[in-house]
C-alpha cells in the first residue's frame, strides 16, 4: 500500500528569530474560501453561524470562536481557517479548498510594525490597524493577507510557492530593524 507524506509550505524555512522578533509557521486544520452567490451573503453567514458558531466578517475584519476563524479576503470573499466546512453551506456560496494554497506565518514581538513597514504600504499602527483587522495588500512584490492577531503579533499569508521569498524578505527586514535598534 502506498503512502503519501505531507509537507508544509515553510517546512525547512521556519522558525527564525532575530533579537525580540520571531517568525514561525502556522498550520491551520483547513482553509476554505467562501464566496456567497448573488444576494446570499446574509443567508450564508447565518448558515456558517449555525454550523460553526461564527458569522461572515465585513470588509477588513475577521470573526472567530475557539480555534475557528473567518477572515475577509476580498470583494464578496472570506476564508474560514481551522475547520472543514459543513456541506450545508454549498447552495448559498462557492466553497473552494485553499488549505494547501497558502503559506501562513506568524510575526511576533516588539517592533513587528517596523519590520512590516519595510514591506507593506498600509499603516499598521495599533491605533489604526487593531486586533481583528485584516487587509489584503502587498508584502514586497507579493500579494498577501495581513491580520493583527495580538498587540505584538501579526499573521501573514502568501501563496505557497512564494514562501521562500516571503521568509527571506521578512528576515532581511527583521535584521535591518534589529541593527538600527542596536545603534540607539
Amino acid at each position, binding site marked *: 500500500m502506498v503512502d503519501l507524506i505531507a509537507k508544509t509550505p515553510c517546512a525547512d524555512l521556519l522558525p527564525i528569530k532575530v533579537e525580540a522578533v520571531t517568525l514561525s509557521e502556522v498550520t491551520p486544520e483547513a482553509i476554505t474560501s467562501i464566496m456567497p452567490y448573488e444576494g446570499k451573503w446574509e443567508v450564508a453567514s447565518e448558515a456558517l453561524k449555525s454550523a460553526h458558531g461564527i458569522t461572515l466578517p465585513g*470588509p*477588513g475584519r475577521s470573526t472567530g470562536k475557539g480555534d475557528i476563524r473567518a477572515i475577509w479576503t*476580498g*470583494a464578496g470573499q472570506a476564508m474560514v481557517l481551522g475547520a472543514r466546512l459543513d456541506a450545508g453551506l454549498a447552495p448559498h456560496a462557492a466553497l473552494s479548498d485553499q488549505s494547501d494554497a497558502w503559506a501562513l506565518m506568524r510575526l511576533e514581538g516588539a517592533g513587528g510594525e517596523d519590520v512590516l513597514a519595510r514591506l507593506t*504600504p*498600509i499603516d499598521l499602527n495599533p491605533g489604526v490597524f487593531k486586533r481583528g483587522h485584516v*487587509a*489584503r*495588500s*502587498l508584502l514586497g512584490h507579493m*500579494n498577501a493577507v495581513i491580520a493583527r492577531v495580538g498587540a505584538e503579533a501579526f499573521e501573514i499569508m502568501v501563496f505557497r510557492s512564494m514562501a521562500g521569498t516571503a521568509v527571506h524578505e521578512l528576515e532581511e527586514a527583521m535584521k535591518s530593524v534589529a541593527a538600527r535598534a542596536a545603534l540607539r
Partner: protein
Amino acid sequence: MRIKCPLCGDRDSREYTYMGHETYLDRPGDEGWSADWDDYLHLRDNPAGVTRDLWYHGAGCTSWLLVERDTVTHDILRVELARDAKRGRG
C-alpha cells in the same frame, strides 16, 4: 497617488492597475464590427481635465473601480465599485 477603495479604504496607487476610459463599461451589442466597436476599442476624447476610468485593485480586494479624477492635477474626485456603476447604467 492614493485611491480610496470602497471596500479596503485609502490605499497607495501601487496596489492598483489601470485599464482605460469608462467607455470599456459600455460594450456594444453588435455581433459584427461597427463604428460603435471602433469607438469602444480605439477612439478616445482623451480630455485634459476631469475624466472617469477603470482601475483594478489587484493587490487588494480584486474589485474593479470606476474612478473620477483630473488628468492634469491628478486629484481623485470620486471612486465607486465598477459593478455598481455598470448596474446603474441598466
